[in-house]
Every structure is written in C-alpha cells, then in structure tokens.
C-alpha cells in the first residue's frame, strides 16, 4: 500500500509540474507586464533597465524557478482588472462553484443508484425500459442546452424559478453559502439539475449494466442458494461490487463536472470560478487565467489522487496488480 501511495503522489506531483510549466509559458508569452506597469511613454533604454530589474531578461529556467517559488507561497500576481491578488479573486468565487458541484453530485447519487439498481433488478418493468430509453436521449442533450431549455420553460414561460445568480447567500466563517437560505436554495435548483443532467444518464446506465453483470456471478447465485433474503442479496452483496467501477468512473468524471461548471455558470450567470475565468479570457487578464488554471489543476489532481487511493483501499487487487508492473 505504501508503494502505491508513493507512486500515486509522485504522479500527482508530475502533473502539477506540467500544469505550472504550461501556466508559466502562458504568462511568459501573453501580455507584457511592463506595459501594465509603466504604459507606453517610457523610452526603450529605460524599458531595458526595468526589464533587467524585474528579471524579465533572465534565462527561462531562472524565471520559472522564481515563478514556482512565488506560486508555492500563493502569490500568482495581481489581477489586471480587479487590482487584487489573483488567487484571492479566484478563492472568493470558489464557494459558488463548489456548492454547484455538491448540489449536482447529491442529485446524481440520490437518483442514479436507486434508478440503476431498480432497472437492473426488474429489467422488464416499464419504468426500467423508460429510464434506459430516456438516458440515451439525456446523454445526447448537451448541458448548456438543458440549461437553456430549463430557463426557457421554468423561468420565462412558467416563471417558477429564478434564472440567474445565487440569490441571497449567508456568510458562514468566510464561506458564502446558498444552502441555508430559502432564496439561495431556490436559485440552486435549476443550475444543479442542469449540471447533473449530463452525468445522471451515464451513471444510471453504468450502475444498471454493472449490477446486471454482478447479479449473474457465482457468489450471488450462492447467496440465493443459501436462502438469504432478496433485500440482503441486492443491497449488501451485489451493490457493494457494483459500486467499485462506479467509483473509478466517478473519479474520472469529476474533471468533466468542473469543465461543465463553466458552461452552467455561463448560462445561469452563476458568480463562480468558471464564469470568472471566461470573463478573464475576454479581458486578457493573464494572472487571473493562470490562477484559475492552477487552482482547478490542483482540485483535479487532489480529487483524482483521493479517488485512486479510495479505490486502492476498497479493491485490493488493484494494489497488487499495479505493484508488480
């Protein structure tokens, strides 16, 4: 297990180094920090002097090392637009995005497991057939279209739910949350469902397929032969092994989820990181773009590592198999 842990952490570190290299080369090639500082009216000789002072003429690796040193301390430069540290600007918006992802995850978990299990146990039932059919339609509808359609139906036509923003939020120890106010919860409904809509059908199909496979295995047949109750077989024996591949796919899909927050946040003008990122792109706010890349990269790497470790814990064969190659 220790070897597995070390290897996994090593890989995570490599990925972060690649991300930081990419971020640094973006910073290096986009925009001129000198122009941000002094404007156009400075002579070429003075510019060169300033460049030397700022270390902009140093070799690539020296500059990169300096960038890394500052990045590790959390200093990613000031946002050109907000005139504040870019990392602070991003972290201010982090709670909005995280709550969106949490809400969508809750919806996915609480719907896909019961529906998937039901469809696997009763494959001939009309509801099972309906969900399997509906899931292929669901997969085919891009997340931003679900968002637009739901705004059109529930906000514009019916006027039931708000179409943009977070509504009223509460500040709990520096974390702004929409989960504790009624207005905030109402604002969460549409964006969370839109974000969940892309992965929900995928997970229903996955859980159904895995569960059906598990129900055919010898140990489940043996459990039937032992005369265990059907509830125990379904929910204790079979469900456990069904959830194994679901954890892996879930880990991979966290990336998809974060990417889709950009789309969802754009449609709902949700004041989160993704919305901020697109604004930063339009304003050519390089420090903010880089801060987003690093924060999101870090979230990716941390969650992927955790998911892999959990998977290693619950499925010993992975540890062994990977230990030998």
């Amino acid at each position: 297990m220790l070897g597995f842990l070390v290897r996994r952490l090593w890989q995570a570190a490599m990925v972060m180094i690649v991300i930081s290299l990419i971020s640094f080369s973006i910073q290096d090639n986009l925009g001129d920090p000198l122009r941000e500082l002094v404007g156009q009216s400075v002579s070429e000789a003075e510019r060169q002097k300033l460049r030397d002072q700022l270390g902009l003429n140093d070799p690539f690796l020296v500059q990169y090392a300096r960038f890394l040193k500052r990045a590790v301390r959390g200093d990613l430069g000031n946002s050109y637009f907000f005139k504040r540290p870019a990392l602070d600007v991003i972290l201010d918006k982090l709670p909005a995005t995280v709550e969106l992802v949490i809400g969508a995850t809750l919806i996915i978990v609480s719907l896909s497991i019961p529906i998937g299990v039901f469809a696997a146990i009763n494959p001939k039932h009309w509801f099972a057939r309906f969900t399997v059919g509906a899931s292929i339609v669901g997969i085919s509808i891009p997340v931003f279209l679900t968002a637009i359609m739901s705004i059109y139906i529930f906000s514009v036509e019916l006027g039931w739910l708000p179409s943009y923003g977070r509504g009223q939020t509460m500040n709990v120890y520096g974390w702004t949350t929409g989960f504790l106010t009624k207005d905030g919860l109402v604002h969460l409904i549409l964006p969370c469902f839109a974000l969940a809509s892309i992965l929900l059908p995928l997970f229903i199909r996955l859980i159904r397929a895995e569960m059906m496979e598990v129900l055919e295995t010898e140990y489940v047949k043996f459990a039937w032969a032992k005369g265990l109750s059907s509830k125990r077989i379904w929910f204790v024996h079979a469900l456990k092994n069904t959830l194994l591949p679901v954890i892996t796919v879930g880990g991979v899909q966290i990336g998809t989820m974060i990417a889709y927050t950009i789309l969802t946040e754009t449609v709902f003008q949700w004041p989160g990181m993704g919305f901020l990122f697109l604004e930063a792109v339009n304003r050519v706010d390089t420090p903010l773009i880089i801060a987003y890349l690093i924060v999101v990269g870090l979230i990716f790497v941390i969650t992927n590592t955790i998911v892999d470790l959990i998977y290693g814990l619950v499925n010993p064969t992975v540890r062994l198999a990977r230990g030998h190659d």
Partner: protein
Amino acid sequence: MISRWQQFAQSSFVYSFRNDAIAIASAIVLFACLTASFSAPLIAPFDPYDPMQIDLMDSETPPLWQQGGDTRFFFGTDAQGRDLLSTILYGTRISITIGVFAVLLQAFVGISFGLLAGYVGGRLDSLLMRVADIQLSFSTLMVAIVTLAVFQVAFGTELYERLAILMLILVIGIAEWPQYARTVRASVLAEKKKEYVDAARVIGFKPSRIMVRHILPNTLSPILVISTVQVANAIVSEAALSFLGLGMPITKPSLGSLINSGFEFIFSGSWWITIIPSIVLIILVLSINLLGDWLRDVLNPKLYKD
C-alpha cells in the same frame, strides 16, 4: 458465385438493421441532416454569408406559424435579420464537418499510438498509457476550453476567427485520442497472441506491415463503434465551445454559435433563435448516438472497460 454486394446484403449486419425500427429511423434522420446541410448552397433560400441579402429590418421575425411570421422566412430570422433556416443549414454543415474531421484526427493519432503501445509493449506501452490516463483525467472540454482561450488571447480575435475551424478540429481532435488508443491497444493485445500473427512473423514480415495489414483490420469493429459515439461527442464539444464564444464566430456560425447568439433573446420572447437550432443539434446528436448504440449491440466488441 455471389457478388460482394449480395454477400453484404445477406449478412446478419443488414438483417439486424432491417429489423430495428429505431436504427432505420435514426439512419433516415441522419441521412436527411447530411444531405440537407451539405447541399445548403443549393437548397437554402438565402446565403447567410452574403451581407447584401441581409436586411436589419427583418430581424427577429418569428417563425411562419406564429403571429407576425413572414412567408420568406420559414423558421423566422435571427437578431441580424438572417433567415434562420438558411443559417441553420449552413451551420449544421460546419458542425458536421468539424465533428468528422476532428474524429478522423483522433482516430489517426489514437490508432497509431494504440497499435504501437499494444504491439511493441514494454516501456513505450507504459509511457503512452500513463500519458493517456492523465489526459483522460482532465476532461476534453476542459483541455479544449483552456487551449482555445489561450489561443484566442494570443492570436487576437480577428485572426482567431479566421482560423476557428482549424483550431476547433485540432483541439477536439488531439484532446480525445486516448479513447482510441486504449480501445485499439486492448484489441491488439488480444490479437497479438493469435496464430496468424505468429505466422506472419515467421514468414518474416516487418512489424509495421503486421500491425497495419494484419492486426489493424481485426480491430475495426470496436473502432467503428467508438467512432460513431466520438462524432456525436465532437459535435457536442464544438457546440459547447462555440456557445462559450471560443469557437465559430457569429459571422460564420455553427449550431453552437447560433444558439449562443440567440440566448439573450429568449428573455425578450424571441425564443426561436435559440430553441430551433438547439432542437436541430439534439436531433442530429441523438440520431448518431442511437445508431452507435445499435452498432454496439450488433458488433458487440469487447470495448476497453475500466
């Protein structure tokens, strides 16, 4: 002696197609989309790229069946006064072109790497698969959004708009190669053990010939199955990127940029500018996905599962 065509017509492949109503229906819909969009210059009532044919006075005309509709504009017009039907036809053509070429690029890169990784094995294999794992853990869309955003900033909007089609194909094409590589590698590993490969090796064929001429043809059915899904995914990715303003410019809209341009108008009642292209996009993607589902059931390849 029966001809190849007869042999094909009597195969179980065609038989199962004939007996599957959903497969037939989606094939018809897909065929209609393809013909209509690729003959757009012939059948579209207007040329949306020609500013002479656009009159701003016609903007936001509702579709024909709604009050205030104009007989010239079946689906109504967008905010610039362009005929929505023509714009959709041209836009679908762009969306499909980008989707197909992006998948061809994915397939080329992914199949080459998959063949090499599976056949050569060893260090090359573990390196390529590790890279594929890492790239897959960052979702395609994320990679594409970041890359395109950076290029847009670097090129400036004007140059970027001219290169948009190429950039979209490159970015979507390169971001998804691991899908192919993993599938191909898995089938190569299974095929490599078989006797015909040993026979070819004993005859003294070069590894490149064995890979391309002997092993590759036997991995075609999984490639075919993921290709359909990948085309659908690529079309959706393109639409999403264009919706974010990182794809096709509004002067040369794909379905995604059309949806984007109409989005702000659904609040003022002009729903058709966004909703009609959305429905076209959904129908297109759904028909491809349904065909893909059917293909998977028929060919039943052992897809890479993990």
